[in-house]
């Protein structure tokens, strides 16, 4: 296999519980991202998606959380082994991030143009005039009308969609290899969502970067991602190409996620149109049950699910993985319960 753009192995991040003990929020996650690819990370709130992103960026909030092992390999270097100074040079230049909330992700007291050029000046030695000129180009690139006028305006002058475009301009300022988009469109209305995602997709192809798209919107995944990774309670429970995933998810949790999507294009393979919710909630991560974390909500649960921790194993075609004792061969007939 050729060397991947980004490779994560056994990544583990822990949080401190109110009682003082440490528990994993990202638990031994492997991940591989190729140039020009969009990898979607899906799962409910609280399943560790965002913490996976923050762990890769090494921005896990302290002293609440701490890194606890694994590797993040980018261009032959393990980011987790870098000094803080070396890591700063990576952030924003090699790996960038876009956040969920465009309304609060920009400094309210700084003109947006300056917030874009700050990223450039932080990583490249250029004059402030040169940085400003490039920031202006970036604002234009991300489709902000009248960039020269917008340059000196403050975030509160801009709508949510415009602000998210500014965030994208900041993230792309130094042409990063990897872009992590943490629910970039969750806070935007649907038409703006499509515009922003189309923009990201176009820039991805133009710049040849890889995108990790964190979302809980499977409609977004179906449209923009090439591969899908499902997380539950801090672990990866399934990985598949987008095609295979929507053709027939292997893990009961993935199946339940898909069944709870109201979109008409995303009905299950056997034509079951009934919209269902997933009973119960994600168990608290500091008190995970023994065995499979999904067992308590799983419609196909067996006795041994509560005893044995399912390991991720190859499943069907190349690169497809699932962590479920009950997942069997991915025949279409098996899928719909």
């Amino acid at each position, binding site marked *: 296999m050729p060397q991947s753009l980004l490779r994560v192995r056994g990544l583990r991040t822990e949080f401190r519980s109110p009682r003082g003990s440490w528990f994993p929020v990202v638990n031994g996650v492997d991940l591989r991202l190729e140039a020009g690819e969009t990898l979607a990370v899906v799962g409910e709130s609280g399943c560790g998606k965002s913490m996976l992103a923050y762990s890769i960026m090494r*921005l896990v909030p302290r002293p609440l959380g701490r890194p606890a092992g694994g590797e993040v390999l980018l261009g032959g270097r393990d980011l987790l082994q870098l000094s803080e100074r070396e890591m*700063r040079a990576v952030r*924003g230049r090699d790996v960038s991030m876009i956040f969920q*909330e465009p309304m609060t992700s920009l400094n*309210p007291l*700084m003109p947006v143009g300056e917030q874009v050029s700050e990223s450039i000046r932080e990583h490249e030695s250029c004059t402030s005039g040169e940085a400003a000129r490039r920031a202006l180009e970036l604002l234009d690139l991300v489709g902000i009308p009248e960039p020269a006028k917008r340059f000196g305006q403050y975030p509160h*002058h801009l*709508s949510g969609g415009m602000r998210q475009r500014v*965030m994208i301009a900041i*993230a792309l300022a130094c042409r990063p290899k990897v872009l992590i988009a943490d629910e970039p469109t969750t806070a935007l209305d649907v038409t703006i969502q499509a515009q922003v995602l189309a923009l990201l997709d176009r820039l991805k192809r133009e710049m040849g970067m890889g995108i990790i798209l964190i979302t809980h919107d499977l409609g977004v995944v179906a449209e923009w991602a090439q591969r899908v990774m499902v997380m539950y309670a801090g672990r990866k429970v399934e990985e598949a190409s987008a095609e295979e995933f929507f053709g027939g998810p292997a893990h009961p949790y993935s199946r339940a996620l898909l069944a709870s999507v109201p979109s008409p294009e995303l009905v299950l393979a056997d034509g079951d149109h009934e919209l269902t919710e997933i009973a119960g909630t994600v168990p608290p991560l500091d008190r995970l049950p023994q065995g499979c974390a999904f067992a308590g909500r799983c419609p196909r649960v067996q006795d041994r699910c509560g005893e044995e921790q399912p390991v991720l194993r190859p499943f069907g075609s190349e690169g497809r993985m699932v962590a479920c004792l009950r997942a069997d061969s991915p025949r279409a007939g098996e899928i719909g319960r």
Partner: protein
Amino acid sequence: MWQARLSYLLRRFAHGLPIVLAIVVVNFFLVRLAPGDAATVLAGEAGAATAQYMEQIRAQFGLDQPLYVQFLSYMKNILVFDMGYSFRHGRTVASLIFERLWATLLLMGTAMAISTGIGVLLGALAARYDRKPLGFAIVLFAIVSYATPLFWVGLMLIIVFALNLGWFPTSGIATIGADTGGLGHVLDVAHHLVLPALTLSFFYMALYTRLMRASMLETLRMDFVTTARAKGVAEGRVVRRHVLRNAILPVLTMAGVQVSGMLGGSVIVESVFGWPGLGLLAFESLAARDLNLLLGIFFLSSLLVVATNALIDLAYTLVDPRIELAGRSKRND
């Protein structure tokens, strides 16, 4: 922009006018709730006085008039900024007040600068070293300062730095009889200013330290700070460029609100240090039931507070672009 600011200021003063008038009315009746009047004080000081003498004094100062007549004449005068006559000092209230005003402004201005400056600095440090020894030390210092009464701080500073160490004078605003002139006089006043200004700033410094610390800790958790870190900006620069300015806004608001509190505090500090300002004058006139003078001081104080609040709001527009003077919204979607 400056034109907009000027017209904003004028509008604010216009809005402040009814407030000041209301204060004048309330004060007029409030001070008369205290038992005794100028006549009883004068009679008391004379040791003995006949009823006739007291009647004569009351007639002289118009105190024998019905309350509403006194009130109307007072209001008529105040509208043309005539604050009346102080029987105690035998001079107009205006001349007395303006003679003392600058001393109070000097004391308050210095105390405000010290308390906000050091408060912001200590608060920022406490947040930066949160859960570390320095952070704990600053918080402890702030709590102790916050809980210590103003007059006690003043007396302790006098005992330690004026009496024991002899570094600073115990009271007054300048050395009596010293005709140093020019720069010498400035230095002399500054020397006298140190202890009273420190005393007055103590409580407010603690207040702003705590406020700044809380505000910094909150701002440090905000999304845009994470954005800055994700850009690869070094932590020191994240704090300087993104956190400090945002965190300072609540301190600015509080400083504006506290101007009136500080004016009250200066009464105590001026009394302790014999600082010849409005506070000391107010204290003396209260004891002497010199109501005209007292009301004049209240009137000027209310003007001062209204004006300072307008200025603070104006300062806000310089720091926070989200606040626009005329209420025009320039938001475009």
